[in-house]
């Protein structure tokens, strides 16, 4: 379990504002560029960065992020090189950083070794899309013993599971806005307000909504309901389109998105 006396670095970002959370895939198009993108987005007002450790078979991702995973692996990105990049970033910014990856890269690296290294380089949490509540026991303990939050995902299909999931969430709750995989969506139909009300009955952990959010208008709408907004595919798409030259476009995008939160 995380040390209760230590201020939770992740929860803190929601304390007096709506949070903007940005996702990108490490190593797309290179780790040097990922470092530059992260620092630029932090400067532009992002409150937390989710760093995707690329995986060969990202089954929760849509085509945009899947392609980013492939590009990153093609240029030889590895977990060790990503740790080295995080170490460099940590020397320059205190922004909370969370890894997003799948069970296999963590398991094969070695759970204890993975989380110990996360702690050492300054990672604050981890999101594992293919680790459900039923299987999380050992991983949650390992993460907790190194001061990391294991972020809880709640989906539109969670229904009777919502309160069980929310009850022991720490850091923030990642509320998946829509069925399906990641990707930009024109419309979000899930009754988020009802799910958030359910969560609120049992947990004070901040709720951030992700999957499909791309425009400032969507960000405004969602931020009226939730504590934070998570954007992945729209950012990864900017990186795919502009490659190494994406930095100023990302800064501008993050600034507009952050300004749209109410």
């Amino acid at each position, binding site marked *: 379990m995380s040390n209760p006396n230590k201020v939770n670095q992740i929860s803190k970002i929601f304390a007096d504002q709506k949070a903007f959370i940005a996702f990108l895939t490490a190593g797309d198009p290179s780790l040097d560029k990922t470092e530059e993108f992260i620092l630029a987005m932090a400067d532009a007002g992002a409150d937390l960065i989710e760093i995707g450790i690329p995986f060969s078979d990202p089954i*929760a991702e849509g085509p945009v992020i899947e392609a980013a995973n492939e590009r990153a692996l093609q240029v030889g990105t590895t977990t060790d090189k990503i740790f080295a990049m995080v170490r460099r970033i940590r020397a320059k910014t205190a922004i909370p950083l969370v890894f997003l990856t799948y069970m296999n*890269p963590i398991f094969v690296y070695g759970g204890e070794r993975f989380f110990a290294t996360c702690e050492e380089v300054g990672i604050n949490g981890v999101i594992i899309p293919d680790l459900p509540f039923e299987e999380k026991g050992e991983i949650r303990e390992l993460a907790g013993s190194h001061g990391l939050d294991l972020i809880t995902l709640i989906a539109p299909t*969670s229904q009777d*599971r919502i309160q069980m999931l929310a009850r022991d969430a720490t850091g923030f709750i990642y509320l998946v806005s829509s069925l399906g995989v990641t990707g930009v969506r024109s419309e979000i139909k899930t009754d988020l307000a009802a799910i958030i009300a359910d969560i609120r009955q049992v947990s004070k952990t901040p709720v951030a909504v992700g999957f499909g959010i791309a425009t400032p208008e969507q960000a405004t709408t969602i931020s009226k309901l939730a504590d934070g907004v998570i954007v992945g595919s729209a950012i990864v798409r900017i990186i795919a389109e502009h490659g190494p030259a994406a930095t100023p476009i990302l800064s501008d995008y993050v600034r507009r998105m952050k300004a749209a939160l109410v």
Partner: protein
Amino acid sequence: MSKGKYGIHGGQYTPETLMNAIIEVEKAYEHYKNDPAFQDELTELLNEYAGRPSRLYFAKKMTADLGGAKIYLKREDLNHTGSHKINNVLGQALLAKKMGKTRLIAETGAGQHGVATATAAALMGFSCEIFMGKEDTDRQALNVFRMRLLGATVHVVTSGTMTLKDAVNETFREWTTRVDDTHYVLGSVMGPHPFPEMVRDFQSVISKEAREQMLQKEGKLPDAVIACVGGGSNAMGAFYNFIPDESVRLIGCEAAGKGVDTEEHAATIARGSLGIFHGMKSYFCQDEYGQIAPVYSISAGLDYPGIGPEHAHLHDSKRAEYVPITDDEAVAAFFYLSRTEGIIPAIESAHAIAYAMVLAPTMSKDQIIIVNVSGRGDKDVAAIARYKGENIHE
């Protein structure tokens, strides 16, 4: 609590979006597996529609030619649609019907599981969508047309290595977008619980019959049972009822492609390591960072980087043995069985035949081997001709 464990293997490593769907399948299966009416309905389908029981055929010429153990062939190739896949599909389709689902989705490698699913969908009135890697739609073109003929939509998967693993990824992705009316008919003893157990139960009819047939024909148990292993469903089905019979060797044949010392193989037990992928803890071909390896086999059905969790456990406990068989050995066996017994096996099943050809001569004439002929080879004829340098059009 983690469910569906086989020793350290198995589990339910699935995105939250799918958990309620999977729990729904689990509960339905728990209920119907003990429901005599469901079992009767399934048996009726298996017998009257799929043509069970399948024959246990004494391969007299092959036995004489190899000069060792007696060889019996379990003829799953004679089932309707041409492989063992129909056993599992009829079970899951019937379950999906009871669950009120109206749409079936499935992955396929060789196309046999896709054809079986499209067949059951036509029979029972489901809409049906099949996901198949582009490599496989190219090398198994005949089966792609068969699925379309049966009314299914075939989606060509162009992500990753464009083979079976990527087809599984894509089918899981599709399921997360639409769970209410859709059942994912997983085609092998893999994936999250309850699939490994449910698929094994539906396939175990193979060893239930084979055991009875053998006792009837020979008055004793076989000395070895041999089956090919992709995800492992025909092998699990062929092994299951022999597991308590400790004198019976259980031997799974993995695809060694161009050799286990090359990069081009799909030999999970020989070359893989422990991992967590596609919903289960098991052995996988992967690198030191847990990236799943691109695998290779001439056989689209065995071209998979993992193995079902119950096999992983049978390997750990040494109850079963797993041997690698190369493309060349499988192709030789494909020709051998065709010419010796007049039976053209699926190239997958030819991997099991190949090992029987190695093992039988080392055994005595009063010993017995059962080889599971998981499917027929019509689908492979054009690809084998190409392998031999002949370009025939399908």
